[in-house]
């Protein structure tokens, strides 16, 4: 598993046309938005949904008829 994944990453990063100039531009323009979405917004959404579920369960637990 490790080896194939490593190989895949290697291939991608070699084929990656992003040379230094490209990486820099990419990091400057699009990447932050994308990462912020994936790693900040999504986890927050996850947390919120889980919170909602939890409170709902609590309410249910307290009041089984609801």
């Amino acid at each position, binding site marked *: 598993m490790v080896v194939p*994944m490593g190989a895949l990453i290697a291939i991608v990063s070699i084929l990656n046309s992003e040379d230094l100039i490209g990486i*820099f531009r990419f990091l400057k323009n699009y990447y932050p938005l994308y990462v912020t979405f994936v*790693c900040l917004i999504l986890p927050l959404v996850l947390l919120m949904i889980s919170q909602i579920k939890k409170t709902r369960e609590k309410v249910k637990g307290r009041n089984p008829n609801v």
Partner: protein
Amino acid sequence: MEKISITKIQALMLGITSITVTGHLLFIPVIIVHAGRDSWISLLLATIPAMLIGFTVALLSQRYQGYSMVEYSQIILGKWFGKLVVFIFLFYFFHEATISIRGLGEFYTSAVTPRTPIMVFLIAMLVLAGYAVRCGLEVIARTNQVILVTLIPIGILASALTHKDKDYRNFLPILEDSFGPVWDGTLPIISLYSSIFVLSMIFPFVNDTKQLKRYSIITMIILIMMFVGPVTGVVAIYGAERAQGLYFPTFLTLRDIEIGALQRLDILGILLWSLGSFSKVTLFLYAIVLAIAQLF
């Protein structure tokens, strides 16, 4: 039922190394391009989102104790939608690993050994990372511990040695163009700190998750502090105008240290980024492998 267990400090240290090093190498120029001499304000502004992400990751891991991100996403969102979200994360991990390894390769080819094919660095790093992942999380965590313990003194040394060249009046005027550029600069920092989310793959193996939230938040604060030195240092040395548009400003500051016999400290920079990038690539590779294993 994995019996791999690491301490929470080890886990957070993994986060610190991986974020700091690629951050210093690839993100500081981006931040400076956006925010210029007000980069430090961007850094301060990023504190709250950074703490938020640290808190979120820790809370999720605490709430779903022993489950990794892959598993609890599916618990929270249901099987199929959860898998979709996991897939997004996975793609991101993959992307991040690629970029950081490529960044290291580019660093070597453009600043250290220009004639060596970039492939050598990429493959060598991956072979190493693969080997480390094969050895398991405990080994990764321990190796990283050694690395971080070496890196921090080097970093402090570097910023102490460059102190002579720094002119802190370069930070004036503050907020010349009001908050616009500062916001632009904040986003890359937030995105950089967000990548600590990768620790959600590691936290299930932490043997004691008590006070994890507090520890993660402290970690984020440490991370902020670790960026203050380089970000301000670069601007203080080169002035905002020249600092914008340097590919590896932090490396250049190290390169130009000249204090008596202490000259030409490129090797410190190279050491710093090689070790750190190794940690990061290993961490992400581990996360990817584990995530795929748990997903299918």
